[in-house]
């Protein structure tokens, strides 16, 4: 009789949901705890669900539809797709978040539609964000999600896992986004394809929930199926059982980094993994700065921007557009004066939602413009114009660029 092998976090969670012990490389059919679709993916999901003979969604109370990608609707075509979602949610009794409630991923975590150790499937690639909680959460397309609605299950290949250990302490003014972009640059856009990542180490333990969310969110920009953050240091507003890998779990790669000396990072236009120290681009003129998206539209991100822009005004010729990640975040930023401060500094607020990140409506850049954004993707055409150039950076770096009109090291603004 052989000893059972130690398991990674993915193996543990998938074993639990498969009803038997599974190991990396196996194909499994697993029970799904919760699911989500946005207005980009839900209409095709509804169509596929009906075409595959679906009558009743498997678990309506754990099925969420979120209108966030093009909200409010910019034209009648999208308005009708939103109506299709509302009608379906009413008929099926699913959860619906309508225009302005916020970005799907922020809502899933803040409103506890997903918990540590659960298996969650979302028809959006950044569903991996919930790895911040220690949930096995991954993105699929519309038809795969329709199958979850129909059967309550999905099939997966149990992934091998890369263990990424981050030690040290980020310097003042260097943010979780800088660490995240650094790791995207190190692993590359396909570095973890078909694989899971586990993030651990003292540098990760110090991150708050928002920082962990940022890190797990961009696991997909490292190509990963999931990015699971170890639970040490995790604080949630409800009780949970921390899930840890076994000491003798088997990893396909071990990577370790020390971040004591990490400087602010930027992803250069074209691909999120073209990451360099911000210094390389210092002085580059920008005309458009965006703060928001599922990776960096949180209250602390608005607070960072307000610190950089305190008692100042953005540079002439620059637009600063901000889309808070949820209505709740917007309300809190209204209540503590942050919205007023940023608006006085020249910022324009958009409704809570994906905003300009997906290039569908508000805030499409013009030809030849250079943009700096807190979002997670800068593929050609991502923001709606293939002739614009989009840098990705931390909220601090975006605010500093808005202030000066040029790419600027934000750390001096955040040192006090």
């Amino acid at each position, binding site marked *: 009789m052989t000893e059972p092998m130690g398991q990674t976090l993915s193996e543990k969670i998938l074993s639990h949901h*498969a009803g*038997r012990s*599974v*190991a990396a*490389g*196996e*194909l*499994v*059919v697993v029970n799904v705890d919760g699911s989500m679709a946005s*207005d*980009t*993916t839900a*209409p*095709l999901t509804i*169509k*596929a669900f009906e*075409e*595959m*003979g679906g009558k009743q969604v498997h678990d309506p109370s754990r099925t969420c539809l979120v209108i966030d*990608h*093009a909200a409010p609707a910019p034209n009648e*075509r*999208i308005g009708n*797709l939103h109506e299709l979602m509302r009608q379906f949610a009413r008929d099926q009794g699913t959860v619906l978040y309508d225009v302005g409630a916020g970005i799907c991923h922020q809502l899933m975590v803040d409103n506890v539609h997903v918990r540590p150790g659960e298996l969650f499937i979302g*028809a*959006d*690639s950044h569903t991996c964000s919930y790895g911040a909680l220690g949930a096995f959460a991954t*993105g*699929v*397309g*519309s*038809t*795969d999600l*329709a*199958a979850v609605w*129909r*059967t309550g*299950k*999905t*099939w997966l*290949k149990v992934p091998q896992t890369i263990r990424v250990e981050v030690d040290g302490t980020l310097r003042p003014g260097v943010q979780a986004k800088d660490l995240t972009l650094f790791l995207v640059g190190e692993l590359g*856009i*396909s570095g973890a*394809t*078909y694989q899971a990542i586990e993030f651990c180490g003292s540098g990760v333990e110090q991150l708050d929930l928002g920082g962990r969310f940022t890190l797990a969110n961009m696991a*997909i920009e490292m*190509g990963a*199926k999931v990015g699971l953050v170890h639970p040490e240091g995790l604080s949630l507003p409800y009780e949970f059982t921390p899930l840890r890998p076994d000491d003798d779990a088997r990893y396909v790669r071990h990577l370790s980094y020390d971040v004591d000396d990490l400087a602010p990072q930027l992803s250069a236009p074209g*691909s999120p993994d073209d990451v360099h120290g911000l210094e390389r681009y210092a002085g580059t003129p920008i005309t458009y700065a965006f703060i928001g998206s599922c990776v960096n539209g949180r209250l602390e991100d608005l607070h960072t921007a307000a610190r950089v822009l305190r008692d100042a005004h953005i540079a002439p010729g620059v637009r600063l557009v901000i889309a808070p990640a949820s209505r709740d975040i917007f309300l809190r930023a209204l209540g503590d004066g942050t919205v007023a401060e940023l608006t006085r500094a020249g910022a324009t607020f958009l409704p809570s939602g994906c905003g300009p990140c*997906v*290039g*569908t409506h508000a805030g*499409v850049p013009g030809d030849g413009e250079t943009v700096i954004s807190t979002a997670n*993707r800068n*593929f*050609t*055409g*991502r923001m*709606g114009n*293939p002739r614009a150039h989009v840098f990705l950076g931390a909220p601090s770096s975006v605010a500093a660029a808005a202030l000066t009109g040029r790419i600027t090291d934000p750390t001096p603004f955040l040192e006090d």
Partner: protein
Amino acid sequence: MDTVLCGSAHVYGDDIDTDRIIPGKYTKTLDLQSLADHVLEDLDPEFRLRMRPGDMIIAGDNFGCGSSREQAPLALKTAGVSVVIARYFARIFYRNAINVGLPALEVPDLRAETGDEFTVDLAQGVVRNTTQGTEHQADRMPEVMMAILHSGGLVAYLRAHGTYPPTEPIGTTP
């Protein structure tokens, strides 16, 4: 579904993301023809003019990375692309392609120039470049994906079967 496909190749490089396959601004629709009208628009504006039904997309590493939008394989399929062949696919695109019935093959050592004529035997996973006279073997896809592809996609598969087949632990399958 035809199991032997013939067509000419349109060759692209590594890391072709789904934003370049179909930009996000066109994805909010159920009109598949409108997706096809803009397929690969930012990557290769001439593609729509050049391509003929049955043509094939051949790419390098990590084809279809980025957004989970199923509109990407739907746009390719509706435009008339018969098969996508890559060194390997980004995970979500690979699933989506098979789920919508667009054949997708992973071939590690493919040689191709745009305009080369190909014959692809889906059942055997054999890819022949008839212009260059080379033959390549595709990697075997997971059985569940093969079953879905043979059904014509996941909608047809679940209409027929109702749910997924049970999976067996490694070592117990023949």
